[in-house]
């Protein structure tokens, strides 16, 4: 069923009893040409583009829980392409362009809201760094705008401009940045992939990767053995565990990142705003809750929950930036397991095993990359060659000495 205003009216008039499930619940077939491990945003997007863009049939996505139960449903929904380095920026801009056409493409309302993202700066050095970043964006054809204090005061009067230690001097604005409804992105890709014949198999945990003569022949799962021609891993925080099944040695650590949402408020914060003196970011959801987060907790963790010290730190950052936040009540907080790479940038790559492909290392920035990650990973799997915008995101960049280190923090995942 195609979703439209007409279909809503028609179903409303007939008692809303004729809606069909958005996707099937198939049992696994004995063999698929391509299996994707991980039914999150990236895995579902990969399956969708494999089927639509690259014309492959006989594809399955295996998910150990329910679709979208990982980080795609646990993030702060920010979409942007304001990166500095040439290895990253074209990739994220490709993603931004896909976001802009995605809802029509998928026939699904992902509630993309290009409200603008503003990165605040607090001193001259930081201003210069943002000018450089803005120029780097322009060089890739991505509009960026530097706002001074006067302009910013008009736009965001509620900020703490005259803080004694971190006064706000201005900000870098990407107008096309914004937010999208995270669950709807997973559901939209799932539904669209299902309609193209992709089998989405839930509650199916991969427990082993079977190999013969150095190539993958299939996966052992909680629903039995499933054979495959090619295998793609998009397991995010659990990448190391799945990779271990194929003896991959990976530059990944799993860390926990927390996020928070407050009670619903009247419209107060129009943009996505990030704090320059810390790592705090905030936006307001369409439901009215303020959605915000900050750094990872800083220690390896596979638990989807974090530490109170980090909660306190996040609140302090938020109140320092917007004093009015002190009277808002937090409703919920949660944690997600991030696949932190050693340079803070992602990996979409071949592996030492010919028909095994890897998609990981998204750190805490995977949501915005969902469409491009899916597209480039599908390109890699279907054609066995790297997509041009993802050509720097190779697994072997670490041993070759070409890390893409946006923060300049070195191979220390808890600092990215």
């Amino acid at each position, binding site marked *: 069923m195609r979703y439209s205003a007409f279909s809503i009216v028609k179903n409303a008039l007939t008692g809303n009893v004729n809606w069909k499930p958005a996707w099937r619940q198939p049992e696994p077939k004995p063999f698929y040409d391509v299996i994707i491990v991980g039914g999150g945003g990236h895995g579902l997007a990969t399956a969708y583009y494999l089927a639509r863009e690259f014309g492959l049939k006989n594809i399955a996505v295996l998910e150990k829980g329910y679709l979208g139960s990982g980080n795609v449903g646990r993030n702060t929904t920010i979409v942007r392409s304001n990166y500095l380095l040439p290895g990253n920026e074209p990739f994220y801009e490709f993603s931004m362009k896909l976001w802009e056409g995605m809802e029509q493409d998928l026939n699904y309302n992902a509630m993309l809201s290009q409200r603008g993202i503003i990165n605040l700066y607090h001193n001259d050095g930081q201003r210069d760094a943002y000018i450089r970043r803005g120029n780097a964006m322009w060089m890739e054809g991505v509009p960026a705008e530097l706002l001074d204090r006067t302009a910013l005061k008009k736009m965001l009067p509620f900020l703490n401009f005259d803080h004694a230690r971190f006064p706000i001097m201005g900000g870098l604005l990407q107008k096309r940045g914004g937010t999208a409804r995270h669950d709807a992105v997973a559901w939209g890709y799932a539904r669209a992939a299902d309609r193209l014949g992709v089998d989405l198999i839930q509650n199916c945990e991969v427990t082993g990767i079977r190999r013969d003569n150095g190539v993958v022949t299939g996966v052992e799962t909680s629903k039995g053995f499933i054979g495959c021609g090619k295998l793609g891993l998009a397991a995010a925080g659990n990448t*190391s565990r799945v990779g271990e099944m194929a003896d991959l040695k990976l530059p990944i*650590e799993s860390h926990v990142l927390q996020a928070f949402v407050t009670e619903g408020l009247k419209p107060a914060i129009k943009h996505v705003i990030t704090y320059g003196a810390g790592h705090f970011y905030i936006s307001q959801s369409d439901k009215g809750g303020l959605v915000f987060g900050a750094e990872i907790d800083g220690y390896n*963790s596979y*638990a989807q929950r974090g530490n109170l010290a980090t909660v306190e730190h996040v609140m302090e950052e938020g109140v320092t930036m917007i004093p009015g936040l002190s009277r808002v009540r937090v409703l919920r907080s949660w944690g997600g397991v991030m696949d932190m790479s050693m340079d803070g940038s992602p990996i979409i790559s071949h592996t030492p095993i010919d028909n095994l492909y890897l998609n990981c290392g998204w750190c805490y920035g995977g949501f915005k990359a969902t469409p491009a990650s899916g597209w480039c990973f599908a390109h890699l799997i279907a054609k066995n060659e790297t997509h041009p915008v993802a050509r720097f995101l190779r697994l072997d960049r670490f041993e070759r000495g070409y890390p893409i280190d946006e923060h300049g923090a070195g*191979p220390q*995942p808890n600092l990215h």
Partner: protein
Amino acid sequence: MASLIHCPHCGVRPKEEFSIRGDASLVRPDPEASDEAWNDYVHIRSNPRGRYREHWQHAAGCRRWLVVERDTFTHEVFSVADAASAAREAGR
């Protein structure tokens, strides 16, 4: 993560006094070691879900480096030892 850590030098202290560096199982290779050995040391991590040995520093206390063994899923802390003693015991 446990809220209190038993530092072998300072006794029971709040976790926030410590900073965490990472994997304690890595051994720095010889300066003349192969590129592969150095790549493994700098970039490759076992990243287990379960028991994990980590280097922590008691930054707001004795400033000694420690080896903390804990579980990366349950966050239970099993043991805290002085890193120098741990290295001597391992014969390094």
